[in-house]
C-alpha cells in the first residue's frame, strides 16, 4: 500500500498548493476523493475507477467502449490502401515506370504501364475495401448492440459504444460481456456465474467466476444504485489470465483476482443475469489488446520468387545497358532525316552522347518494363485463395465425420509450402494419440492391479515373436468411457480383502476428492457425466466411482461422495468432505492438492502429480513402497501408460491455520501472485505419504501408424516432441512404427546413474557441469557412431532419443551443431520431457540450422510455440481447446489427414505454383525479348515494337486467365495415385520444379521463341504480300508478331498441362479469341483525338494477305517445336517420377479414382452430408467479437522465448459446454 499512500500524499500536496478553484472543488466533493482540475494523477502502473459514478471518472478520460477494427476509413482508404499496395516492390516499380512514362523520354504512352498497374491495384483495393466493409458492418453491429446499465435506480438499455468505465451493467443469460467487467453479483447462489470463453481461447468448457462475498447483494437496481466503491487495478494489458487489483468498499480493501473478472468476448451461461462494473472498455479490453496480428509467414517458394524477380531486374538492367551504349554510339548528325540540328533535345543530341545513353537507359527501362510480371502476385494470391478455400477446406477426404470437422486453411499463403515439407514435428498427446484416457492399471501400496494389455505391449510382443490371444473379456468387466479396468481383486468391493485395505481406501478417496471435476446430470452412477478440464481427471473420478467412491455433487466448499461402506459390504453412505483449500495444477508445479476436512474432523491433504515432484516431497522412510512403486511406474511407462502418483498427508489444525494465513496473504498479493502462491503451496506439500500410482491408457488415433509409414516413404522425417516420459515416448514411437528393432537407437538421457547421484547431492552448479559434460560426450560418441554407420553400405537406420534435460544442454550454442548433425542423420527423433519452449527451439534449430522446411503439428496449448516456430503450423481441431488451431496455419481433425494435406494438396499446390511462376517468367521474358531484338534495328532509339494497348493488355487479358486455370486444375497424377506413391513427394522436397536449372531451360526457350517470333515475322514480311504488291509497315509486322506470341504463349501453356479440363480449353481459346476481338474492334475504329492511328485497319490489311495465314501457321509451330522436342526427350530419357507413374497408369481409366471419390460422396448419409454442409457454411464467428483473433489467447512463442512459461491451463472448475449445441438447435426449430 506504500505506493498508494505516496499518491495520496502527492495529491494532497498538489491540492494544497492549487488555486482557489481546486480548493472549492475539494470542498464540494469532500465525500469523494480529491479532484484536481482535469488531470487526476493516475499511477503509471495502476488505474483507479470510481464505480457507479460517471462524474468522478470523467476527468481521467478513459477510452470509450466503441471499437473499430477497420483498417481504413473513407478518408484514409485511398492513401493508406495505396500505400499498403505500394509496399510491394513490384507495384512500386510499376508506379515508378508509369511516372517515367509520362515524361518525353518514354517510348510508350503512359497507358501502357498504367492500365495493368491500375487493374492490379483495382483488384487488390476492391478486395481490401470489401474486407474492410465487412469489418465495419461488424463493428457497427457490435457497437450498437444494447446493454443494460444502471441509471437512476433503473436498468436502461444503451448501445455498447456509450458504455463508460465505472458503469454498473447487467448482462443477461447468453449475453456477451460488453467490456471487461468486475463481477459484483449474480442470480446464482454464492455469487457464481459461468462463462464461455470460446471466442477467446476456443475452449468450449465453461469457466466459473465468483464474485466477492462482500458484493453479492448488489443485484437489484435499487440496491445496486447504492453501490459505491473504488477499484484500484492494473493498467490495461493483454494477459488474459491475470488480473490484479483491489476493491475498496467502505474503507475495506478486498483483493481482486481473475476469478472476478468477466472478459469482453465471453458470454454468460447458466446464469439468469449478473451485475458488474466496467473496468476496461473498448480497445483497452484484454481481448482487444490481444488482437494484434501475428506477422504472417511467407512461403519458401515465394522467397525464392523474390530472388527470381531480382534476377529479372538484373537482366533488365543489362538489356538497358546494352541498348543505352548502342544509342550513344549510333546517334549521329549524318542521319539528317532525324532532324538532329543544333537545337535538338538532350536525348538525341549527338554532341553529348553520354547524356543520350543515360536518357536512353530510362527510355528502355520503361520499354522493357514488361519483363517484370506485374500480375504475378495478384494471380498467385487468387490461386492460393481458391486452393485453400475451395479445395483444402472442402476436401471430403479430410472431413472427419464423427466430429463434423472439415479441414481449415487459416492462411492461404502457405499452400505450396505443404508440398516441400521435409521435417514434421509432432506432438504426441492428442495428435498421435487420441487423448481419450482410460483408467487402465494402478499400483496401490506396492501392489499392481489391472489385467489389461495395451496395444503397445501387444505390438512389442509381436515384434518379439510372441502371439497374444485376445484376452477373454470377463463378463463382470465394467467398460465405460474413461474406464477400462478389470481386476477382481479390486472390483465390487473386493479390495477390502486385500493386504492393505487402508491404502486402497486412501487411494480411492484421493481419486474421488482431489480433482476439479464438475458432475453433471442425474446424481446416479449410471447417468452422471463428469466435466473435467483434462480427460485424465475424468477418467480418475470415473475410476473412483467404479471402485465404490461415487463423487456426485460439488459445492464451492463441499464435495459429496457416496461411499460404499468401508466395513459392511453393500451398504452405502453419503459423506461430505469440506474443501478448505485447493492448490491448483500448473505446469511448473506438476501437481495438484486439495486440503479437506472429513466429517469427523480429520484434516488431510491429498496430492496427486508427476512422479518426480511427488517423490521429492515424500516423507522419509517406507523405502519398500517407494521402490516397488517406482518399479511399477517404470513398468507402466514402458507399456505406454500415463502415470500419476497419489500421496496424502495428515495435517493438524494448527499447522493448517498458520499456513492458511500465509496462503490468504499470497492470494491477495498484488504483484507476483502466482509465484507467491507456488511458494506457499510448497510449504505444505511436503512430508507426504505415498499411496500408489495410477496408469491411464492413451489410445492411438486412427490410422496413425500407416500415415507415418506413408509419410516416411515420402521422404519426410518425423520427430516426436512430447512432454511424456522417455519410456512412454519410445513406446508410442514403436507403436507408430517410427522406431523399430532394426534401427540403431541412440539414447541420450539424463536418467543415468551418474547424473542421479550428482543430483542427489543437490549442488546445482556441479549437477549442471556434470550433465553438460556427459551430454557433450554422448553427442560426440553418437555422432561418430552414426557417421560410421552411414559409411557402411547397408547400415541400419538410425533413431535418436533425447530427453528434455539433456536437450537443454544440447541446444547450447556450442553443442547445437553436433546435435543438428546427429539428428539430421537419423530417420526418426524422439524428444521426451520437453517444455513448450524446447519444442520451439528444436523446431527452429532444424528450420534455421538445416534450412529445411518444417511442419509442426499439435493440438494443445503447449504446442503453440512450436506451431508458430515452424514454417507450417498445423493444429488438430477436435476435442481439446483451440489454442493450437488459433495459432496454426492449417487445422485438420486427425493426424492421418496429413497424408492428404501434404501428399495431395501440398504436392499439387507446389506443382501448380511452380508452373504458374515459371510460366509467368517465360511469357514475360519472351514478350520483352522480341522488343529487345527490335531495339537493335531501330538505331537503339527505344522505339516500341508493339502498340501501347497490346503491351498493356498482354499481361492482364490475353494471357491472364489460362494460367490461373492451370494454377487451379493442373494435376499430374490423381489424388489416389499421389497417396499410393508417396515417393512422388520427394520431388517437392528436392524443389525439383523451381530450380535455377528449370528456370534456365524456360529462359533458353523464351530466347529461342522470341528470336523465332521476331525474325520469322520480319523475314517473311520484307517483300510484297499480295498480288497488288503493296508493302507492310512497322505496325503490320508487329501486329503479326503479337498475334503469333499470343497464340504460342497460350499454346505453350497447354503443352505444360498434365490434365486438360474444359476450363483449360475455354480459357485458352477465350484468351486467343479475346485478342482477335480486341484487335478487330481496336483497329476498326478511329478515335477523335491524336493517338497516332498506327493500328488503324492493320488487322484487316494483314488478313487480306496470304502472308498472314502462312506465318500464323509457321511461327507458333516452329516456336513450340523446340519445347516439344525438349519435352519429348526429357520425358523419354530423363523422366520425372510423376511421369513414370503417369505412364504406368496411362491405360487405367480415370474412372476408378472418380468413382471412389463419388462413393465417398455417396457414403455420407444425408445427415452427415447435411452436417458437412453446415460445417462448410461461413463460420459463425460470433458477431459480438467481430475481429480476427489472430493471436492465441496467451503467451506466444515470443513471450516464451523471453523466459515466460506457458501458463497453466485454466484448471478451474470447468464444465464442457456440450450445452452450446443443445441451446442452438432448439432455437432454430
Amino acid at each position, binding site marked *: 500500500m506504500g505506493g498508494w499512500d505516496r499518491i495520496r500524499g502527492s495529491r494532497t500536496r498538489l491540492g494544497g498548493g492549487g488555486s482557489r478553484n481546486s480548493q472549492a472543488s475539494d470542498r464540494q466533493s469532500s465525500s469523494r476523493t480529491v479532484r484536481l482540475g482535469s488531470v487526476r494523477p493516475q499511477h503509471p502502473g495502476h488505474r483507479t475507477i470510481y464505480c457507479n459514478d460517471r462524474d468522478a471518472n470523467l476527468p481521467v478520460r478513459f477510452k470509450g467502449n466503441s471499437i473499430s477494427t477497420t483498417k481504413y476509413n473513407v478518408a484514409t482508404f485511398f492513401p493508406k490502401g495505396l500505400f499498403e499496395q505500394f509496399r510491394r516492390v513490384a507495384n512500386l516499380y510499376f508506379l515508378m515506370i508509369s511516372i517515367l512514362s509520362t515524361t518525353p523520354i518514354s517510348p510508350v504512352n503512359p497507358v501502357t504501364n498504367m492500365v495493368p498497374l491500375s487493374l492490379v491495384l483495382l483488384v487488390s483495393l476492391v478486395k481490401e475495401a470489401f474486407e474492410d466493409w465487412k469489418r465495419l458492418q461488424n463493428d457497427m453491429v457490435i457497437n450498437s448492440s444494447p446493454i443494460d446499465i444502471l441509471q437512476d435506480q433503473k436498468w436502461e438499455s444503451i448501445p455498447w459504444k456509450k458504455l463508460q468505465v465505472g458503469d454498473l451493467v447487467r448482462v443477461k443469460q447468453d449475453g456477451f460481456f460488453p467490456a471487461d467487467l468486475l463481477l459484483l453479483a449474480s442470480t446464482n447462489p454464492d455469487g457464481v456465474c459461468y462463462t464461455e470463453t470460446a471466442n477467446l481461447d476456443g475452449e468450449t468448457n465453461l469457466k466459473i467466476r465468483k464474485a466477492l462475498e462482500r458484493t453479492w447483494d448488489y443485484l437489484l437496481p435499487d440496491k445496486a444504485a447504492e453501490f459505491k466503491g473504488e477499484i484500484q487495478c492494473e493498467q490495461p494489458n493483454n494477459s488474459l489470465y491475470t488480473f490484479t487489483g483491489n476493491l475498496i468498499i467502505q474503507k475495506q480493501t478486498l483483493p481482486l483476482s481473475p476469478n472476478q473478472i468477466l472478459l469482453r468476448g465471453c458470454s454468460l451461461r447458466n446464469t439468469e443475469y449478473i451485475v458488474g462494473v466496467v473496468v476496461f472498455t473498448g480497445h483497452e479490453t484484454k481481448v482487444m489488446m490481444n488482437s494484434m496480428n501475428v506477422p504472417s509467414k511467407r512461403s519458401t517458394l515465394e522467397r525464392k520468387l523474390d530472388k527470381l524477380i531480382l534476377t529479372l531486374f538484373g537482366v533488365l538492367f543489362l538489356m538497358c545497358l546494352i541498348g543505352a551504349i548502342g544509342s550513344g554510339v549510333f546517334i549521329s548528325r549524318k542521319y539528317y532525316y532525324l532532324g538532329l540540328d543544333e537545337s535538338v533535345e538532350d536525348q538525341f543530341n549527338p554532341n553529348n552522347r553520354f547524356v543520350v545513353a543515360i536518357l536512353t537507359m530510362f527510355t528502355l527501362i520503361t520499354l522493357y518494363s514488361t519483363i517484370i510480371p506485374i500480375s504475378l502476385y495478384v494471380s498467385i494470391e487468387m490461386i492460393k485463395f481458391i486452393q485453400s478455400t475451395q479445395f483444402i477446406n472442402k476436401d471430403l477426404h479430410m472431413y472427419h465425420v464423427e466430429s463434423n470437422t472439415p479441414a481449415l486453411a487459416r492462411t492461404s499463403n502457405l499452400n505450396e509450402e505443404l508440398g516441400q515439407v521435409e521435417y514434421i514435428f509432432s506432438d504426441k498427446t492428442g495428435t498421435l494419440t487420441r487423448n481419450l484416457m482410460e483408467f487402465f492399471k494402478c499400483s496401490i501400496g506396492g501392489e499392481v492391479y489391472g489385467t489389461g494389455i495395451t496395444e503397445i505391449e501387444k505390438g512389442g510382443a509381436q515384434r518379439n515373436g510372441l502371439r497374444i490371444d485376445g484376452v477373454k473379456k470377463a463378463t463382470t468387466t465394467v467398460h465405460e468411457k474413461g474406464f477400462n479396468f478389470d481386476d477382481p481383486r479390486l472390483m465390487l468391493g473386493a479390495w477390502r480383502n486385500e493386504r492393505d485395505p487402508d491404502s486402497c481406501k486412501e487411494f480411492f478417496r484421493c481419486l474421488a476428492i482431489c480433482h476439479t471435476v464438475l458432475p453433471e446430470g442425474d446424481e446416479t452412477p449410471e447417468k452422471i457425466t463428469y466435466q473435467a478440464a483434462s480427460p485424465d481427471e475424468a477418467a480418475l473420478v470415473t475410476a473412483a466411482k467404479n471402485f465404490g467412491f461415487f463423487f456426485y455433487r460439488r459445492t464451492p466448499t463441499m464435495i459429496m461422495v457416496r461411499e460404499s461402506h468401508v466395513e459392511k459390504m453393500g451398504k452405502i453412505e453419503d459423506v461430505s468432505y469440506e474443501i478448505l483449500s485447493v492448490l491448483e495444477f500448473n505446469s511448473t508445479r506438476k501437481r495438484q492438492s486439495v486440503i479437506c476436512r472429513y466429517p469427523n474432523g480429520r484434516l488431510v491433504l491429498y496430492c496427486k502429480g508427476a512422479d518426480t515432484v511427488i517423490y521429492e516431497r515424500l516423507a522419509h522412510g517406507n523405502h519398500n513402497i517407494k521402490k516397488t512403486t517406482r518399479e511399477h511406474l517404470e513398468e507402466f511407462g514402458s507399456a505406454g501408460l500415463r502415470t500419476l502418483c497419489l500421496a496424502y498427508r495428515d495435517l493438524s489444525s494448527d499447522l493448517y491455520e498458520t499456513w492458511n494465513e500465509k496462503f490468504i496473504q499470497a492470494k491477495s498479493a498484488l504483484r507476483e501472485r502466482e509465484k507467491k502462491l507456488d511458494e506457499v503451496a510448497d510449504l505444505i506439500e511436503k512430508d507426504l505419504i505415498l499411496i500408489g500410482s495410477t496408469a491411464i491408457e492413451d489410445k492411438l488415433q486412427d490410422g496413425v501408424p500407416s500415415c507415418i509409414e506413408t509419410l516416411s516413404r515420402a521422404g519426410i522425417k518425423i520427430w516426436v516432441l512430447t512432454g511424456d516420459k522417455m519410456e512412454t515416448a519410445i513406446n508410442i514411437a514403436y507403436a507408430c512404427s517410427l522406431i523399430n528393432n532394426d534401427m540403431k537407437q541412440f539414447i541420450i538421457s539424463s536418467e543415468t546413474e551418474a547424473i542421479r547421484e550428482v543430483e542427489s547431492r543437490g549442488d546445482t552448479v556441479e549437477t549442471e557441469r556434470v550433465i553438460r559434460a556427459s551430454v557433450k560426450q554422448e553427442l560426440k560418441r553418437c555422432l561418430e557412431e552414426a557417421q560410421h554407420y552411414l559409411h557402411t553400405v547397408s547400415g541400419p537406420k538410425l533413431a535418436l532419443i533425447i530427453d528434455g534435460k539433456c536437450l537443454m544442454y544440447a541446444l547450447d550454442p556450442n553443442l547445437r551443431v553436433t546435435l543438428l548433425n546427429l539428428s539430421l542423420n537419423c530417420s526418426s527423433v524422439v524428444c521426451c520431457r520437453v517444455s513448450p519452449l524446447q519444442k520451439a527451439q528444436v523446431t527452429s534449430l532444424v528450420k534455421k540450422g538445416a534450412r529445411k522446411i518444417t511442419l509442426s503439428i499439435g493440438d494443445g496449448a503447449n504446442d503453440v510455440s512450436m506451431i508458430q516456430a515452424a514454417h507450417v503450423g498445423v493444429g488438430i481441431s477436435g476435442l481439446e481447446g483451440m489454442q493450437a488451431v488459433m495459432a496454426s496455419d492449417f487445422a485438420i481433425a486427425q493426424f492421418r489427414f496429413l497424408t492428404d494435406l501434404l501428399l495431395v494438396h501440398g504436392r499439387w499446390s507446389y506443382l501448380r505454383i511452380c508452373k504458374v511462376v515459371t510460366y509467368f517468367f517465360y511469357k514475360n521474358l519472351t514478350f520483352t525479348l522480341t522488343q529487345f531484338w527490335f531495339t537493335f534495328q531501330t538505331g537503339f532509339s527505344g522505339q516500341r515494337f508493339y502498340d501501347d494497348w497490346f503491351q498493356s493488355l498482354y499481361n492482364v487479358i490475353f494471357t491472364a486467365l489460362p494460367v490461373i486455370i492451370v494454377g487451379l486444375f493442373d494435376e499430374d497424377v490423381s489424388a489416389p495415385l499421389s497417396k499410393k506413391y508417396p515417393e512422388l513427394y520427394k520431388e517437392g522436397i528436392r524443389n525439383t520444379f523451381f530450380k535455377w536449372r528449370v528456370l534456365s531451360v524456360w529462359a533458353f526457350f523464351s530466347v529461342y521463341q522470341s528470336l523465332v517470333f521476331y525474325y520469322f515475322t520480319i523475314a517473311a514480311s520484307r517483300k510484297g504480300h499480295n498480288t497488288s504488291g503493296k508493302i507492310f509497315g512497322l505496325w503490320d509486322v508487329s501486329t503479326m508478331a503479337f498475334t503469333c506470341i499470343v497464340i504460342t504463349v497460350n499454346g505453350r501453356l497447354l503443352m505444360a498441362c498434365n490434365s486438360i479440363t474444359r476450363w483449360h480449353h475455354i480459357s485458352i481459346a477465350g484468351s486467343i479469341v479475346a485478342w482477335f476481338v480486341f484487335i478487330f474492334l481496336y483497329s476498326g475504329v478511329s478515335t477523335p483525338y*491524336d493517338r*497516332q492511328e498506327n493500328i488503324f485497319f492493320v488487322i484487316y490489311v494483314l488478313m487480306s494477305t496470304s502472308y498472314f495465314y502462312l506465318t500464323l501457321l509457321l511461327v507458333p509451330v516452329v516456336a513450340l517445336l523446340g519445347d516439344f522436342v525438349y519435352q519429348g526427350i526429357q520425358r523419354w530419357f530423363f523422366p520425372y517420377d510423376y511421369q513414370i507413374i503417369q505412364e504406368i497408369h496411362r491405360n487405367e481409366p480415370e474412372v476408378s479414382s472418380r468413382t471412389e471419390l463419388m462413393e465417398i460422396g455417396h457414403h455420407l448419409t444425408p445427415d452427415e452430408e447435411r452436417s458437412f454442409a453446415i460445417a462448410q457454411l461461413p463460420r459463425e464467428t460470433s458477431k459480438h467479437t467481430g475481429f480476427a483473433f489472430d493471436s492465441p489467447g496467451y503467451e506466444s512463442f515470443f513471450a516464451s522465448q523471453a523466459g515466460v512459461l506457458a501458463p497453466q491451463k485454466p484448471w478451474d472448475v470447468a464444465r464442457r459446454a456440450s450445452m452450446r449445441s443443445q441451446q442452438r438447435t432448439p432455437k432454430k426449430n
Partner: protein
Amino acid sequence: MMDMEVRSTSGAGGGTPPVPVNLRRSKAYYRFTQQNLPACKPVLTPGWVISIFLLTGVIFMPIGLIALHASQSVVEIVYRYDTECIPESFRSNKVAYIKDSSISKNCNQTLKVQKHMKAPIHIYYQLDNYYQNHRRYVKSRSDRQLLHGLNYNATSSCQPEELNNELPIVPCGLIAWSMFNDTYTFSRETAELKVNRKNIAWKSDREHKFGKDVYPFNFQNGTLVGGGKLNPRVPLNEQEDLIVWMRTAALPSFRKLYGRIEVDLEADEFIAVKFVNNYNSYSFGGEKKLVLSTSSWLGGKNDFLGVAYIAVGCCCIFISLLFTLLHVKNPRHESESSPQDSEIQMTTR
C-alpha cells in the same frame, strides 16, 4: 462460384429436395471442390511424339513446296543505282553532289529482263540503312492533321518540322519532310512504258487516314526544305507517294511501292530507265535500289516462307525417324514398370 456454393449448401442445409438445375450445378461444384473435374490427361508417350512430328512434317512439306514454288515463279530485277548515278567527278564527294541543286540529277541506265515478266510489274524503290523506325522519326507526324488539315492545330508531335511562319506545315513532321523524291521513267526501245502510280497505297490509308480536302499548301517552301515536294493543288488522299512513305517501315532496310508497269516484259528485253537521283542517301551511307518484280498469290519474291516450311517439315520427319529408330532399337517396354506395378497391386490389397 460463390453463388453456387450458397445454393448447394443451402439446398443441403435446408434439406429440401434441390431442383434439377441446382443438382447439376452442385454436382459440378462438388467435382470442382474435390478437384475431380473431367479431364483428359495427355501423356506424351514416344508414340505420340513420333506421330505428332510425322504429322507436322507431312503437313508442312507440301505447304513449303507450294510456297517455294510460288516464290520462285516471281521474277525480280534489283538494280542499285545510287552508286552508278553519280558523275565520275563526284565519286569521292557524293554528299556535295547530291546537295548541289544546280547539278542535273538525271541519269540513264539500261536493265536487262532475264525472264518473261507478266504484268502487272511492280516498281519498288528500296532503301537500306535508313532508319524509318527510329523513335524520333516514327512519332514525328500528326495523323489528325493529315486527316483534318489546318482544322487541327495541336501538332506538337511533329517537331522539329512543325511550323512555318507560325502556321503548321501541312503535312508536318519529319516523315513527310523527308519524303523520297527520286523518280523513274521507263522506256522500251523507243516507246515509253507507262507507269501507273495509282493504287499503290492501302485503301484504308487513302480513305481514312488522309483528308480529301487537305492540301499541302505550305509544304517544303519555308526554310526547312527536306525531301520530296507535293503538288499543293492535289489533296493529301490522292498523294499516294506520300501515303506510301508515311507507312513507316519496320526495318532499316525496306521497299516501297512506286508504281506499276501494266504490260508484260519479255525475256532478254532491254529497258531504259531514266533516274532522277534526288534523294540524299549518301550522307548516312545508305543504298538505293530499283526493284522490278512480278507477283504471285504469295506476293513478291520471298523464299523465306517456303524454305522455312520445308526446313521445318524436314526436321520433323527427321526427328520422327530418329525417334522411331530409337524406339525400335531400345523400346521402352513395360518391363521396367510391370514388376513395380504388380508390387503396387500387392501393397494396395
